[in-house]
């Protein structure tokens, strides 16, 4: 019996050793061609558009900059990208260029990501392409770069419904909390689409964070840490938060906020919008609003084009303060890479006029055509293309763009998001506070959901504050006061 067991274990160990044996790094430069290994969400070798993109990019780099590179794309397994990427990196297999969508801090803490500050300072194009929030974020966390517009969310409603509601003009002229409330009431009381269309004024996906994009700042919650009597307190335990939750509870009790918002996902939220069950939804400015607009017109006709609503106006006005502690996603360069400078040169080229034309418009003849009038985007562009890298505010082409990159409502949402930009004063939660922060967040989620849905009275707010402080709130507040003074 022992011999048999030994035999089985030996075989298994042999197999395991064979599987885990690390291969020698095959990345050898031949004829001066540098192989750049790239890990990027959805841009693996099985995606023909991605393969074509990087092949084209390599040719353009050779022609324009005499940069001789070959891209090796990493095929990422299906599932949560951040999780799979972390597993890849933890195994010691570190690509030269890595796109992160979370989970980067652990890697940066192990000094495996390059500090991009000196590269940006020396860059020809990127430093000028960066938007104010990108500059702030890079200063606070120099490992991720993501030159993209703000990701604030903006509320939208279909135009024909909006215009049929009498209080819409007053709302646009003065988007106060009261006018929003009146507008929502009228939208449900006199449904423009007939009985039950809409059944509720606004729906959100799973929690109140999307609703906060409309109302939070109007209640005076303009920062994560609010200054009171010379000290900072977290906005979640402030009197302003209490007032906001009371208002949300009113919306819920009056049937204006979707009674099933807690179980809504992004897809069921959108479905409720297109089907006319909910009047207003909130989506990321720009491309997402473009999608809402396109789908809404497809389902309900051209007159159902969407209208972007302004943020509620109160003590402050805006679509939430922007977190500038770090980029929540973006590209990083491995500190172990043999080609760090080359990788950054590639990133810088993508911010150049020629690189921008390629990255933002796609392949000539496929995604756009050049005519005497200018660049004409094709149907394939709208169906397939998106910028893999940078989207700075200014995008100037040699010839004019005959067809716009974004629809009118989408562009409006982006303009509004930029207009109301303000930076938050939050900070990266240190590792030792992560589990406490998680507990405090859960206490807040539980209490806020209960208050809004009427399961707990708002008068329990003081009890909640005590619970929140006990779960670690006092310690983190003390830390915040040290950080922010």
């Amino acid at each position, binding site marked *: *019996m022992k011999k*048999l067991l030994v035999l*089985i274990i030996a075989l*298994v160990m042999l197999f*395991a050793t064979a599987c885990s044996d690390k291969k020698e790094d095959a990345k050898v430069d031949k004829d001066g061609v540098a192989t750049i290994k790239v890990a990027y969400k959805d841009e693996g070798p099985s995606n023909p558009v991605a393969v074509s993109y990087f092949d084209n990019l390599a040719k353009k780099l050779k022609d324009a900059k005499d940069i001789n590179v070959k891209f090796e794309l990493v095929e990422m397994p299906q599932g949560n990208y951040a999780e799979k990427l972390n597993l890849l990196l933890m195994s010691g297999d570190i690509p030269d260029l890595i796109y992160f969508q979370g*989970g980067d801090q652990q890697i940066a803490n192990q000094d495996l990501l390059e500090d991009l500050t000196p590269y940006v300072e020396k860059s020809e194009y990127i430093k000028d392409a960066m938007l104010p929030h990108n500059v702030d974020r890079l200063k606070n966390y120099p490992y991720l770069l993501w030159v993209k517009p703000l990701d604030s969310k903006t509320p939208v409603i279909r135009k024909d419904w909006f215009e049929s509601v009498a209080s819409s003009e007053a709302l646009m002229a003065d988007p106060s909390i009261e006018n929003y409330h009146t507008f929502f009431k009228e939208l449900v009381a006199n449904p423009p689409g007939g009985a039950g269309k809409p059944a509720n004024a606004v729906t959100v996906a799973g*929690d109140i964070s999307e609703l906060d994009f409309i109302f939070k700042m109007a209640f005076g919650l303009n920062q994560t840490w609010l200054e009171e009597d010379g000290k900072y307190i977290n906005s979640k335990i402030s009197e302003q938060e209490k007032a906001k939750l009371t208002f949300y509870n009113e919306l819920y009790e009056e049937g204006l906020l979707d*009674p*099933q918002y807690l179980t809504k996902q992004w897809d069921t939220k959108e479905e409720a919008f297109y089907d006319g069950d909910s009047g207003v939804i909130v989506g990321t400015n720009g491309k997402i609003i473009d999608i809402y607009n396109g789908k809404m017109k497809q389902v309900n006709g051209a007159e159902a084009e969407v209208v972007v609503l302004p943020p509620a106006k109160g003590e402050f006005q805006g679509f939430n303060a922007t977190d500038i502690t770090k980029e929540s996603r973006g590209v990083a360069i491995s500190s172990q890479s043999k080609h760090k400078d080359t990788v950054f040169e590639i990133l810088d080229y993508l911010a150049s006029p020629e690189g921008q034309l390629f990255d933002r418009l796609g392949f000539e003849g496929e995604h756009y055509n050049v005519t005497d009038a200018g660049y004409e985007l094709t149907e394939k562009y709208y169906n397939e293309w998106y910028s893999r890298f940078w989207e700075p505010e200014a995008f100037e082409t040699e010839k004019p763009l005959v067809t716009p990159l974004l629809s009118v409502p989408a562009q409006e949402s982006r303009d509004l998001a930029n207009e109301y930009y303000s930076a938050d004063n939050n900070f990266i939660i240190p590792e030792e506070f992560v589990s406490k922060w*998680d507990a405090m967040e859960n206490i807040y989620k539980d209490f806020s959901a209960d208050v809004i849905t009427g399961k707990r009275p708002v008068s329990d707010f003081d009890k909640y504050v005590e619970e929140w402080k006990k779960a670690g709130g006092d310690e983190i507040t003390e830390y915040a006061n040290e950080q922010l003074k």
Partner: protein
Amino acid sequence: MTEKGIFQRIKKDWVIYLMLFPAILYFSIFHVIPIIGMKLAFQDYRIIGDNIWVGMKHFEVLLSSPAFMDVLKNTVIISSMKMIFFFPIPIILSLMINELRNGPFRKYIQSVVYLPHFLSWVVIAGVWISLLSPVDGGVNVIRNFFQLPSLDFMTSKDHIRWVLVFSEMWRSAGWDSIIYLAAIMKFSPALYEAARIDGATTFQQMRFITLPQLMNTVVVVFILNLGFFMNAGFDQVFNLINDSTISKIDILDTYVYRIGILNGQYAYATAASLFKGVIGVILILSTHFVSKRLTGKGVW
């Protein structure tokens, strides 16, 4: 049996052993070898360079976390509810299917009860959220028919754990009954024939022949299930949780996922897994020995 005897037996029935080999390989690669990796629970992981030994640091952080006792409590409550209310269902179902004599109808029933097992929890969550919707869900339509008010089961702290139990029941009762049905198939028909001659009713045959013989299988399955006691169902909870029910169904696995996996703290996640595993082993061994002493039946 002597070693020589074992090898002779393998040589004789090598085809059968060959069929067993993939299973041995699977369990070795995915369940035995990872035990070596459990040392990570006592280390700080370094991608480049040697890991740093930190002793019990991760266990101390885990046990001192304010949320840990809450998630542990939720895990134990949900697992206990599933163990008490769900465990007997596949046994009852297998007894009922066994009594169905009509071939096509029996096959139809079996297919219907096995089917949900093949659906992912993402799909099942969608089905249950629709079914329990307070606005137009089937359950509330029936409640309203009987003049009862609508209930929002999915956001109710009082009902959400029952939703977990019943959705698990719906998904797995059929599939889990297969093992009992297989056991019933090997019972001697002579026993049933003799009982029928003696005038035993169907229920009496079930009560005095099937159930006593099935007890061995029931005990083994029960003890083995206890090994997974701390796995209260990550996929299920992950898809059915919302802000309103987080305090009632946030379990050890979802907590570890947030803190350990999403934040890339793999050593911490490993410590939590080891904690769960040790409790599972303790439960299996203690139940095995108690059962052995009381009933003479155990896993081995």
